[in-house]
């Protein structure tokens, strides 16, 4: 045990004597986070003083002008939607496209002529969404909103069934004033909806309105971009640091210090455990530094202390284990550098560091769940979203299991490599 401590302290002294690599690895995620936040142009507050989410700017060209399309276009202008979206109607496609090119819109929705009639008559139709290629996230958000809107409209049309054409005929002939037609339609719809009420009512989800004197941490009413993005950057930074520290195994092998220790009274197991331990300590320090920067410079609230400590510990274990596993497979420092950089970036992308995993296709989400980043991001986001033990527990458990499995596997594989004379 005292040898493990001696070896670990030696590595920590070396890190302190030459902290440049550590600082560079911490700077990478901070720089990326800073660049992305600046790209959105507004890091203002979501609460009174906190950061606010950028609004989705959507252009709508309504070529149909029927009541369905009016409903659809109008739905984007209710008070709740208006907090998150800025919708501007344009008279034609060309003027809409010009404004899209001028970066006025993130996306342009074109409702074609005859859209409402097609929907009510149960015919297939389409909406055209033109995304701004110069932007990354907001056009995707616009696409999601449009897809959800189209899904609901299709569902409503199918529910109307053969009553749909009658609604269409009444609307187009201006027959809304004809009480007889409206009465007949109402009777028909009443019969049609009778079976549906059992499915619809009572609603499974109810909205409870609550009042608070102060907004909860991370629940300031708007989407808090920084609180959402920074956890992803922290996890990415921790993995960068973990990988760069674990590289020390190969550095020691190449410098001959590892052989020299093993020629002395140090066993390979002791050496590997101490290396993993020292990497864990440095990764913990990196996590602490990044969290302190997040709290001090960006006003992020990391939630209650105990769940935070448990989450951080599980995350450190997972990151350290992942680094050990990676370095049980690479042969040279250069390989470690190249593979480490690529794997960290890919895992960060897949794990939702830059875009929400919720907008990913199902197959990609399944892959994301295999990454440390996904579980780490979700854990930290649960905390920045005001969560406590209940919210982080499932993620924390997975992280701890991942960490234990990967650390054990990494140490075993590294030991096997040593016995083969490759380490």
């Amino acid at each position, binding site marked *: 045990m005292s040898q493990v401590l001696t070896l670990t302290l030696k590595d920590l*002294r070396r890190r302190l004597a030459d902290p440049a690599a550590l600082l560079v690895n911490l700077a990478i995620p901070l720089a990326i986070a800073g660049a992305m936040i600046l790209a959105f142009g507004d890091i203002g507050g979501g609460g009174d003083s906190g950061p606010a989410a950028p609004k989705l700017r959507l252009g709508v060209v309504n070529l149909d002008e029927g009541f369905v399309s009016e409903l659809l276009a109008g739905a984007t202008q209710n008070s709740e939607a208006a907090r998150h979206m800025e919708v501007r109607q344009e008279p034609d496609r060309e003027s809409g496209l010009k404004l899209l090119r001028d970066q006025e819109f993130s996306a342009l929705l074109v409702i074609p002529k005859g859209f409402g009639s097609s929907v009510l008559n149960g015919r297939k139709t389409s909406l055209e969404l033109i995304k701004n290629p110069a932007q990354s996230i907001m056009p995707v958000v616009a696409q999601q909103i449009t897809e959800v809107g189209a899904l609901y409209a299709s569902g409503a049309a199918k529910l109307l069934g053969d009553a749909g054409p009658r609604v269409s005929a009444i609307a187009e002939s201006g027959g809304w004033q004809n009480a007889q037609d409206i009465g007949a339609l109402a009777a028909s719809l009443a019969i049609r909806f009778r079976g549906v009420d059992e499915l619809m009512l009572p609603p499974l989800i109810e909205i409870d309105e609550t009042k608070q004197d102060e907004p909860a941490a991370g629940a300031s009413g708007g989407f808090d971009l920084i609180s959402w993005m920074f956890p992803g950057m922290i996890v990415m930074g921790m993995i960068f640091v973990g990988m760069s520290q674990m590289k020390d195994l190969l550095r020691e092998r190449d410098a001959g210090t590892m052989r020299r220790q093993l020629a*002395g*009274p140090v066993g390979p197991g002791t050496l590997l455990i101490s290396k993993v331990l020292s990497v864990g300590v440095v990764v913990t320090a990196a996590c602490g530094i990044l969290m302190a920067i997040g709290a001090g410079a960006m006003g992020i609230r990391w939630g209650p202390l105990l769940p935070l400590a448990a989450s951080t510990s599980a995350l450190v274990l997972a990151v350290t284990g992942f680094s050990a596993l990676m370095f049980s497979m690479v042969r040279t420092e250069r390989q470690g550098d190249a593979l480490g950089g690529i794997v960290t970036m890919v895992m960060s992308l897949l794990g939702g560091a830059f875009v929400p995993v919720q907008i990913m296709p199902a197959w990609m989400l399944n892959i994301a769940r295999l990454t440390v980043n996904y579980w780490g991001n979700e854990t930290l986001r649960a905390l920045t979203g005001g969560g406590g033990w209940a919210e982080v527990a499932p993620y924390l458990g997975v992280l701890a299991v991942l960490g234990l499995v990967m650390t054990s596997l990494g140490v075993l594989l590294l030991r096997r490599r040593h016995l083969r004379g490759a380490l």
Partner: protein
Amino acid sequence: MAGDEPEALQVSDVRYSYGKARAVDGVSFSVRRGEIFGLLGPNGAGKTTTISMISGLLPPESGQVLIFGAEATDPSGRARLRMGVVPQEIALYEELSARENLRFWGEIYGLKGASLDKAVNQALEQVGLADRAIERASKYSGGLKRRLNLAIGLVHSPDLLLLDEPTVGIDPQARLRILGLVKAQAAAGRAVLYTSHYLEEAEQICDRIAVVDHGRVLAMGTVAELRRLVGEGPVVTLKGDVSPEQLQMVADRTPGVSLISASGGAASFSASDAAACSGLVRELFAAATKVDDLRVQEPTLEALFLKLTGRELRD
């Protein structure tokens, strides 16, 4: 030094292969306390592999390595606690100072507190680094790093010291200092195994030498014993335009002369005395169409190596 203490190092018929290439092929020797034993051979002769087996880093495929009677690979590590290893590469932490390096290596050998401080100071004094002890090793010259590399092997006062080419790439002054230090270790009763491909060094400090090549011990004994294997008289080396057949004929018709080696226009002969030597020189000039270089030397380990392997040590 206990009277019934086993040999400091006993290597018996060890073998090791890297894949299909046999690196060490039945090497045996022993080293006693107070003795400097040299393993002499060119690069790739199997010296470092032998050292790796002795230091427990590689398990011998067959044979046995005993350190003061205990197996080198003994998992308790007792044997290795009595051994100090100075590898060929400079294996130290450049981010740390000489003192920090020595403290770390002393600690892993179980030293602590006042005894650690004393051992560190002593090692620094021995290698002449006391006045630069707090400087980072990365700022040291190659020679100073070599000295620190040696000090790390000495810090826990081992009974057996393994030195793998400790003077590679340093200036003559630093080399002399290191050689003096090695002699002092043996004089203090330590057993020293010293590998080198510098013949002069081996001749200068080793009590006994094993000449190795291609993983085998070709000859073993004191420097005087090994010299006698070459012959008492001088060694004549020639570079020029002479065929191997002509060289053999020259050797055959010159009394007191034998051909040691002949290849690629180079040859070496041993002569029994000065008269045989002058006769050989006359015959060589008569037989050769062109002579580029002709030297007459006293018998050396270089000549022995040439005789045993047919090539120079630095080939």
